[in-house]
């Protein structure tokens, strides 16, 4: 079990990464689309590394390795990662070797032996186990937390809770003219694009156009509701909020986090670039419930 611990961890981590990237779109809940190829490569590499590690640990080190080192390897494989005393000795000696051994093997090994005592001392010297090198790989078991979470019950995409917690942010930019909107009626826009055009476009490209946006429902204080979308640059930890106030004739209240597609026209308010212009508003003609899109976030 312990012998194959590293291999199992690598397989588990690699498997979790592959499960959310290769077998589905779940990764989009956590990171943005551009990371997918790197994640797939990492997942495959981790699985391969896990297999190779298992094989290497199964087979004893080859005869080309010299004696003392073989010993060190053995120690690591069998009980280096949990055992204070032995792990400490192995690693202390090893660290010393790296520090002192300037190419000279003989010298390096001696130094290693001397420092080994040091390592044991420090190992018992009241350091917390997990921050200490010799016991280091024990910390690797923490990898099981996110890996199992991803494999068994992938955490949901961030929603209205996160959107409500932080004041929605506007992209920092100045008033100016925007490129012409693409053709189409209605024209498909992201919440972020609609917001920046509504607030900053001196050419008022939105006026007279019917637009369509998709997002989830959040509620304001006074009965207003918004179509909201989180903007993610790198991963969900940097999510910021974009939202559009929806004015519609309909009275029924949709619960928060319901995904909807709204079609309507821009209702100008405030002067361009001012705080009053924000959040932008939309006179909605139709509001339809939709399934959560594969990518729950917009790219910031």
């Amino acid at each position: 079990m312990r012998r194959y611990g590293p291999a199992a961890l690598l397989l588990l981590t690699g498997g979790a990464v592959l499960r959310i990237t290769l077998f589905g779109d779940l990764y989009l809940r956590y990171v943005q689309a551009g990371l997918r190829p790197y994640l797939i490569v990492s997942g495959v590499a981790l699985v391969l590394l896990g297999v190779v590690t298992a094989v290497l640990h199964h087979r004893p080190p080859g005869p080309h390795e010299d004696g003392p080192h073989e010993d060190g390897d053995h120690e690591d494989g069998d009980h280096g990662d949990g055992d204070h005393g032995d792990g400490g000795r192995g690693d202390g000696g090893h660290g010393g070797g790296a520090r002192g051994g300037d190419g000279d093997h003989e010298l390096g090994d001696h130094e290693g032996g001397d420092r080994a005592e040091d390592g044991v001392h420090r190992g018992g010297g009241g350091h917390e186990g997990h921050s200490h090198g010799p016991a280091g790989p024990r910390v690797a078991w923490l990898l099981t937390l996110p890996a199992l979470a991803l494999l068994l019950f992938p955490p949901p995409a961030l929603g209205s809770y996160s959107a409500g917690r932080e004041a929605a942010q506007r992209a920092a930019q100045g008033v100016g003219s925007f490129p012409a909107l693409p053709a189409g009626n209605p024209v498909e826009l992201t919440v972020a694009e609609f917001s920046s055009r509504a607030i900053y476009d001196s050419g008022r490209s939105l006026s007279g156009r019917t637009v369509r946006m998709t997002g989830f429902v959040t509620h304001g204080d006074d009965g207003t509701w918004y179509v909201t979308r989180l903007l993610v640059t790198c991963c969900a930890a940097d999510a910021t909020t974009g939202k559009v106030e929806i004015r519609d004739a309909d009275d029924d209240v949709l619960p928060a986090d319901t995904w909807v597609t709204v079609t309507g026209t821009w209702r100008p308010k405030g002067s361009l670039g001012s705080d009053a212009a924000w959040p932008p508003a939309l006179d909605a003609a139709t509001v339809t419930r939709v399934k959560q899109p594969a990518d729950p976030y917009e790219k910031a």
Partner: protein
Amino acid sequence: MQNQRTVADGLRVVVRASVYAVLGGAALVAIATVVSVLGPLLALDLYTPPVAAWWTVFTAVAVQGVPFLLLGTVVSAAIGAFVPDRVFRRLLPRNPALAVPVAGLAGVVLPGCECASVPVAGSLMRRGVAPAAALAFLLSAPAINPVVLVATSIAFPGQPEMVLARLLASLGTAVVMGWLWARFGKEKWLRLPGRGAASAAATGPRAFLTGLQHDFLHAGGFLVLGAAAAATFNIAVPRSVLDLFTGSPWLAVPLLAVLAVVLCVCSEADAFVAASLSAFPPTARLAFMVVGPMVDLKLLALQAGTFGRSFAVRFASSTWVVAVAASVLVGWWLL
């Protein structure tokens, strides 16, 4: 002596294995029971929006870190296994005072975020590079590589001075920290990266694989620890409290510098976050981008794991101070 130890070890392994088997079995039974019987009820009660958001952010930081961490550990294992010491001796000036800026500038070549640079710096030290130079590289690599600089210029359109300021302040901090270490650093603070296997002295493919496996698992564990810390702060500290501090630049700079530490935004994304903090003065946002790639909770965990805790605490706190000072100076000059 050797035999006794082996027997004792064998016994210990057997005892431990049986204890684990019993504990693990009991845990499995308990989990199975809870999941099958109480699961649906309990899950609904415990899985409140904040908890769900915590898990999402936690997994997101971990997932995001995996490719970069793997890149970093591949590079570091390759350095350890295939690059002879003399290469670095030839590349870097002998004098540490000169080696530091050279190593700082060399940070340009490692594309990626901060997770990648910690294992690489560790393996540089193992290969005999002066710690001061390796540390300068550690600090500068995630901050001044082309990917990050391009991201910064996209996040601050029409403000090339922000990119320049970030480059100068980050490089300055890295070099100053390297010099500070060369002058005041003590060897004993630094627990040089220990790798259980024989790979530090050994070379070749096998050493590469053993080193890669060990480094990745080791650093991965600390990445998870850092992700948990980042998620906790992300959920616990609403960003709206920041609005209280936007008025005074004297408060704004340290505030955003602290925010950079607790938010642990990846260095490739932090420019966008900084850009969105539009209520703050430019110098404070610069400080956010300079501190973030050098000091944050995730990095602190990684550094503590790689170089030891007493090093990580000293190094991170002094880096924070130097980074803030560099941002203020450069910001005052350029922005």
